[in-house]
């Protein structure tokens, strides 16, 4: 299929790029606006947009304001010491960002996680996905000027933060998933509390739909805005909800099921329109599906057993390399780890969804209106800190 669409897409994209570079210098009508890093609508991220009237003719992303050099830092620390700093890029979703790291390290070190441990860390990562998505939704609400939609998800996020607090002892940056399983077993009464909170949360999702997704003003602002076609989505290599909103039902949990996800019964939620509305609605559907997965995880979890494989304090990875992925709140999150047989990794590359989705930002913004900028930008599920790493 790739053969017949490829040339025209390629031409189109190159042409667009050429127009951007020429237009910036020649025309006097253009106004260059800086969005970020201290703009209320950007996070720790800067991109410049050049507007001609109300239309954006050029967009240049400029990430790196929160670059920590995680990949370099990894080379100086052993496999266990890397955990706390690796979860800093996404403190809400820290279970997921450590999940694929743990999978890759387990492959290199050669250990197997006990079955109960697999269930618990899948549960933790689902809870973290909810926490992240709710936070994302809250910011999307305030970006569109809907202050109520900022407050409700922020409040309901507390349901899951509460659970993570009981499970791991920390509200964010849990350091819970580690190579070899999880740090501790679930506490008493956790299962009932979890089921109670999920049941309440599903009721709340209906309210979100009422006040936000079905609101005609919200529909007007997002429907038909920033359309990313299926071919463009594939070609640009976007991931996560952005990809699924463009009609590609791709989820790492289905494509490459890790741990216990092949026993779970869930559907990959996707939409075909590829506009801002679809990109904002797919995470919402994912949240519903995630509740479903969490119920199954709690149901099928073995009642007792080990949760953590014994790991020596300073494990050495066998020489070689591993590339493992999980589906995080923002799409596929992969770690490429090269080990040279020492306790420290030789090279760690983090392939994050935010960085991969950033390429769609100039693609979508060029030609759209300045007023569409927040709705397009944040619908890309972009987390600046994670993209900078």
């Amino acid at each position: 299929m790739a053969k017949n669409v490829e040339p025209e897409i390629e031409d189109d994209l190159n042409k667009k790029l050429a127009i951007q570079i020429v237009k910036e210098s020649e025309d006097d009508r253009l106004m260059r606006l800086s969005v970020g890093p201290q703009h209320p609508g950007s996070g720790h991220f800067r991109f410049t947009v050049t507007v001609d009237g109300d239309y954006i003719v050029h967009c240049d992303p400029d990430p790196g304001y929160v670059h920590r050099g995680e990949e370099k830092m990894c080379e100086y620390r052993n496999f266990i010491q890397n955990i706390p700093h690796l979860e800093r890029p996404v403190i809400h979703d820290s279970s997921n960002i450590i999940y694929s790291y743990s999978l890759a390290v387990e492959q290199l070190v050669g250990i197997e996680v006990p079955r109960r441990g697999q269930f618990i860390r899948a549960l933790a990562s689902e809870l973290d996905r909810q926490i992240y998505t709710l936070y994302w939704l809250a910011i999307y609400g305030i970006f569109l000027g809907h202050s109520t939609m900022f407050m409700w998800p922020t409040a309901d996020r507390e349901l899951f933060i509460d659970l993570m607090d009981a499970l791991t002892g920390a509200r964010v940056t849990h350091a819970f998933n580690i190579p070899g399983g999880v740090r501790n077993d679930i506490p008493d009464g956790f299962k009932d509390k979890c089921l109670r909170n999920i049941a309440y949360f599903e009721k709340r999702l209906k309210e979100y739909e009422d006040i936000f997704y079905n609101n005609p003003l919200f529909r007007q602002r997002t429907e038909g805005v920033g359309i990313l076609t299926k071919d463009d989505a594939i070609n640009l290599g976007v991931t996560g909800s952005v990809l699924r909103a463009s009609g590609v039902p791709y989820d790492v949990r289905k494509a490459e099921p890790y741990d216990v996800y092949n026993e779970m019964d869930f559907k990959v939620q996707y939409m075909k329109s590829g506009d801002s509305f679809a990109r904002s609605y797919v995470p919402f559907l994912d949240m519903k599906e995630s509740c479903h997965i969490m119920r199954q995880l709690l149901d099928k979890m073995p009642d007792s057993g080990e949760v953590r494989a014994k790991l020596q304090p300073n494990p050495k990875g066998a020489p070689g390399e591993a590339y493992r992925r999980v589906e995080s709140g923002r799409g596929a999150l992969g770690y490429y780890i090269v080990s040279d047989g020492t306790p420290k990794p030789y090279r760690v590359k983090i392939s994050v969804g935010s960085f991969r989705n950033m390429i769609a930002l100039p693609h979508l913004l060029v030609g759209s209106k300045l007023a569409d900028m927040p709705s397009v930008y944040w619908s890309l599920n972009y987390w600046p800190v994670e993209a900078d790493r």
Partner: protein
Amino acid sequence: MKRIPSTAATSSASGMLKSIESGSKHLLIKRFTLRYPDQKLKFTGDGYQFDPKRGVGIAGSRGRHILFHDKCTGCQLCAIACEGIAEAIGMVKVDEQWKQNKKSIMPQIDYGKCVFCGLCVDACPFYALYMTDDYELSSFTKEHLIYTPAQLAIKPKYDGNVELKIGDMGATHG
């Protein structure tokens, strides 16, 4: 596996009416806010602990540490565990004589640096270092954030007793 989600596309009037209904419904729902200094959350367990024999932690809140002087051997494993993470733990001399601690050194923790990951607790093989519920560690100076072994030995008092309640009128704290 593949299905098109129903977007519940509604006309703008009924969508607006639903918004109004949902908004006015929430005027009757209980508030969610935790009034923090007056109310404090109740935590599970008695702080994060670790069982070196089984190799598994015990769930609990990760606040500041508690150090049991009668068990600490001055083996520095906690300081080594912290080395690449926060470098918050330093070993200092104490004026105490314990027969298991010949060198009389014990960890001193700088909470200006600690990230509360609890990996030092995992590293302690002698049940000497646990974590507690106490998370209110702010102070005016950086020096006050450095907790000496004597300060770490004190068990903090934490009296949080508010739990998240879910009822017909929504979720609320207390």
